[in-house]
């Protein structure tokens, strides 16, 4: 190392932090209310309040956390929890292709940046490329986690003040997945996957209703593997 790593002038740094927080605001507007709903759900499901912040720190992945609330209440086996986590968060594998991690030099900061690489952080950096610095990126990611953990805690507090159990609140999760499915299926090219997924889940439901999610995901993975092998066989020269 020839150059001493300089953190940059403080004024510059403050401007970058401010820009990072600004970049976090629009996505944060959606994260906070969803966090409140998640906190409410944790309490209404009968789990201890600390599960809300603890899971938001362990996973930091919104839709997975909402899903895990129900799985924990049902004391789902850890193998099923592991597979569900793997498949639901598998999309994160592709975020490394375009996330500007090379900007972050400090090892601790780098570790946090990777840990906090959530959908929103990926979407915002990809949506406005070219203007990122280490401070901006990290302050945005820390702001995201504060919205999410803060929203969950607000939901916990709110649940304690509600007069009674609200029946049907967990439908929010179903509604969320319906909208995410619609967003993922903007072209007809996605229809075969959706059809295979529907058949896989229906079959799993018929065979073992109690572990339909686990079996359905496994069956879907198997079906896609067969589809991949068939597609490769059909065009062997195109490699």
């Amino acid at each position, binding site marked *: 190392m020839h150059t001493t790593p300089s953190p940059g002038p403080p004024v510059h740094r403050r401007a970058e932090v401010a820009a990072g927080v600004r970049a976090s605001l629009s996505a944060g507007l959606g994260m906070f209310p969803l966090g409140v709903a998640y906190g409410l759900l944790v309490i209404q499901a009968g789990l201890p309040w600390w599960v809300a912040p603890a899971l938001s720190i362990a996973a930091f992945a919104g839709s997975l956390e909402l899903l895990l609330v129900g799985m924990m209440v049902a004391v789902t086996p850890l193998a099923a929890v592991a597979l569900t986590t793997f498949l639901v968060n598998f999309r994160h594998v592709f975020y490394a292709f375009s996330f500007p991690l090379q900007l972050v030099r400090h090892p601790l900061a780098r570790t946090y940046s990777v840990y906090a690489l959530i959908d929103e952080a990926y979407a915002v950096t990809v949506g406005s490329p070219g203007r990122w610095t280490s401070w901006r990126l990290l302050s945005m990611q820390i702001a995201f986690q504060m919205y999410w953990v803060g929203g969950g805690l607000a939901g916990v507090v709110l649940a304690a003040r509600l007069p009674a159990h609200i029946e049907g609140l967990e439908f929010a999760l179903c509604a*969320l997945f319906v909208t995410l499915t619609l967003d993922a299926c903007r072209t007809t090219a996605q229809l075969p996957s959706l059809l295979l997924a529907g058949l896989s889940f229906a079959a799993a439901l018929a065979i073992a209703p109690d572990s339909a999610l686990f079996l359905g995901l496994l069956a879907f993975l198997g079906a896609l593997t067969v589809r991949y092998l068939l597609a490769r066989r059909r065009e062997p020269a195109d490699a």
Partner: protein
Amino acid sequence: MPDTWYILAVLGTVFTITLALRAVPFAVLRPLRESRLVTTMAGWLPAGILGILALSTFHGSAGQGGGHLIQAVVAVAVTAAAHLLSRRRTLVSVAAGTVTFVALSALG
């Protein structure tokens, strides 16, 4: 109801897998980018997995307390319609669907 040890085991499992999914790709970026299996699956997986999660949570909501099937079907229709009409503003669609389901469940 789960005990504390079970909850801690879930937290540990989820932490490990989620962090690995986020960290490992940075270490093996090039082979991943060149793998045809990985890039193909990247295109195929999301819609289907989200669809299975939608079906699974639908099944949970529709079946709870001895049959809320009609309420769930109506609420899904409201969610989807709100989503397509509100230019995919997720929060609006989720709120509309959830309020519909809670209200219909309270009625019947």
